[in-house]
């Protein structure tokens, strides 16, 4: 369908997008790694429970850990080989996670699920669940749960905004796998029983918009280039004009949002029976020799991905897993890739912000750019004083989506996100304490 322009939302920032580093590079498939370490905590919920023993032979695509609870997801072997070890290690976020180490045996045997032809909605949901698909945009919420909402919905929105600077993985995917994404979107729409499919794409990707205009059943919405345009609530508002209430799910407003990479994974899972074992990762930043968009198997060590991209040419000041606005800073290259790892960035001193914070000026810029219309400076002020309840009250911290726009714009370089996360954690503790009483 002919593309339409999206609505305007207040707030947001315009970081230098740096996508030119890796935008024009076609995706490459990384050679299979020797060892993979697959975390069992690949989604928002509880970690999956390992179902393989140490020393077991596994094939590529075989189930190695079973989901535990509704918002947990299955985990699959991403290469063929032997289970070398199952042990606890520090994950990227700093929390201890259970990792399953698999050493390759050189074979290339696949143990995929049987492909489905013309599946029913229930079959689609079941297959999404069986393939361990989670939201690949970054949050890692199991797609199967989203694909079977409790309230009826009327619109499916595909998120192709990719508003994070540097990242081009969704852009490359939309260019190279347009048809698969469209088919995946149709499967998702069928599962949701909706006939309206919208794809939101930022205006800096006109070629993607053009490609999706060719499909009669998909409506591309041109989004203004702005961060965080790809935030779920912002995207829903811009694309449909509906607001998602605080503490409500998008489904309550009749909308389900899925990332384009998720739609692609759904298509693969249904047509090829392939579980979620690989994804595109953008390796970028000015400290990397050759930035690339790479298909990487789950659980590959960061070090080998960087080696595949030619290693460092400058000394990085920051190594980031994910996008520069919401990603996690790595202490070393030991970290393993995750279902939600969208990028690996090595940033030089010029790019990465490592300034000392100066006193807050009360300029209010953080509140001006907040897409959720919060008051981050109040959160920072009260949490520094240790009064987390006041911080949550005057800053409305619990509604924060942690997009990082406030800290980006702050002229005093205050660590606002840190204060917000601290406040959220303390409030969670307080609420749990209150429940126990």
């Amino acid at each position, binding site marked *: 369908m002919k593309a339409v322009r999206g609505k305007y939302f207040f707030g947001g920032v315009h970081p230098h997008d740096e996508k030119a580093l890796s935008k024009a590079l076609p995706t490459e498939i990384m050679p299979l790694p020797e060892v993979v370490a697959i975390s069992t905590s690949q989604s928002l919920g509880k970690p999956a429970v390992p179902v393989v023993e140490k020393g077991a032979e596994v094939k590529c695509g075989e189930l190695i850990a079973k989901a535990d609870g509704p918002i947990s997801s299955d985990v699959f072997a991403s290469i063929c080989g032997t289970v070398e070890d199952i042990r606890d290690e520090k994950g990227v976020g700093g929390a201890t996670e259970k990792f399953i180490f698999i050493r390759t045996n050189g074979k290339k045997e696949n143990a995929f699920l049987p492909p489905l032809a013309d599946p029913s909605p229930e079959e689609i949901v079941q297959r999404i669940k069986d393939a361990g698909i989670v939201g690949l945009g970054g949050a890692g919420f199991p797609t199967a749960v989203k694909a079977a909402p409790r309230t009826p919905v009327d619109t499916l929105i595909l998120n192709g905004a990719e508003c994070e600077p540097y990242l081009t993985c969704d852009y490359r995917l939309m260019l190279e796998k347009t048809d698969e994404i469209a088919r995946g979107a149709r499967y998702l729409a069928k599962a949701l029983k909706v006939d309206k499919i919208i794809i939101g794409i930022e205006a800096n990707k006109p070629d993607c918009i053009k490609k999706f205009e060719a499909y009669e059943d998909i409506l591309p919405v041109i989004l203004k280039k702005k961060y965080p345009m790809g935030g779920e609530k912002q995207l829903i508002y811009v694309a449909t004009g509906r607001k998602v209430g605080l503490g409500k799910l998008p489904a309550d407003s009749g909308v389900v949002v899925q990332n384009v990479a998720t739609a692609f994974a759904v298509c693969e899972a249904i047509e090829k029976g392939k579980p979620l074992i690989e994804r595109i990762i953008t390796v970028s930043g000015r400290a990397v020799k050759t930035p690339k968009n790479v298909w990487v198997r789950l659980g590959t060590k960061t070090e080998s991905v960087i080696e595949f991209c030619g290693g460092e040419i400058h000394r990085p000041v920051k190594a*980031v897993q994910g996008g520069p606005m919401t990603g996690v800073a790595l202490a070393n290259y030991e970290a393993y890739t995750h279902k939600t790892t969208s990028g690996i960035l090595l940033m030089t001193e010029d790019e990465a912000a490592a300034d000392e914070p*100066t*006193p807050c000026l009360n300029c209010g810029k953080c509140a001006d750019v907040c897409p959720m219309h919060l008051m981050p400076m109040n959160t920072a002020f009260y949490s520094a004083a240790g009064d987390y309840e006041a911080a949550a009250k005057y800053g409305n911290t619990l509604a924060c989506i942690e997009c990082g726009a406030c800290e980006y714009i702050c002229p005093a370089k205050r660590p606002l996100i840190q204060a917000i996360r601290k406040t959220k954690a303390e409030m969670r503790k307080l609420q749990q304490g209150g429940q126990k009483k």
Partner: protein
Amino acid sequence: MIDNTVVISTPPHVKSKRTTRGIMCDVAIALLPCAIAGIVYFGWQAFVLEITSVLGCIATEFVYYFIAKGGFAKKCKNAGKVCKKWFCQFDMTSVVTGLILALIIPSTTRWYEVLVGSIFSIAIVKMFFGGTGKNLVNPAAAGRVFMFLSFALTTYVAANIGPTMLESELFTGATNLSGLLPKVTEGAASAPYSAMTNLDLFLGTGVAGCIGETCKLAILIGYVYLCVRKVIKWWQPALFIAVFGFVSVLAMGGLFYDGSAVVYKFDIELFLPSVLSGGVLFAAVFMFTDYVTSPKGVWGQLVYYVIGAALLAVLRVLTHLEVASFIILIMNIFVPLIDRFIMRKPFGYIKQKKTKEGK
């Protein structure tokens, strides 16, 4: 391979290049036209006052930094290091304060008076409260008020106050039944201030007043610069001026008896002279918009500007004095209250009351 010099922090890992120092440099640049206009109109005295004030502010901040925290003797020993450290954290706020302070006093002020005022501004109003970002009231406004009360800057009231001074003439001779309601006198409103045209007031030619406040053109140049650099929001001074103009026009009007009924009459032609006279424009562009002492949220700022402007207009008509800096101090004191009670509704906010009643 990565070594231990890598920085680990919470996201975002990219930040804007804007810093506090950069913003304050922008403000200082925006003040330059006013400073130059002041020198052009008032000669070398204005230049001396500006330099004294800026240097006084910087020196006060440095001295305070030097003696305030950590042993004085220890700092004396490695004074070089301390100076370097001070320079690293120096954020230009005292330069801005010094410049503003010099621009809102008359050129007849003596240099030592300015020096005392700048020391008061920085040491007592800013540093005692915790330095940059922590001061309760605008340091420059407080410094000016301090000088006004201590040295009696009486010359200030002279001529640059515009039509508010003349309003008594407007009503003299008008008699009516009870003596409470003056009669409409045709043409009386515009006659007294015809000596000074709006253009004169705008350019500051032949107008007595404060160094930086006389040339409104220079202030407007600074205003445009600040808006282009996105230091202030364009609507803030505009709203202030609009509200101020209308309220002062209304306040200068009055109830008249036109023979058959009591009517409220006002002269809209008074709008421009009242806006262009005195230091209102300067205060609106450079002083009310001060980050530290204005509300954080947009709704709070709206309230702040509207109340501030209305209060200033009314008080100016009542006192026949330029009371902008007093109003700034008064409004500054209410800022924490405004911030506390005018809360912002988050995106997707659901009204709480309805659900409670439903229960």
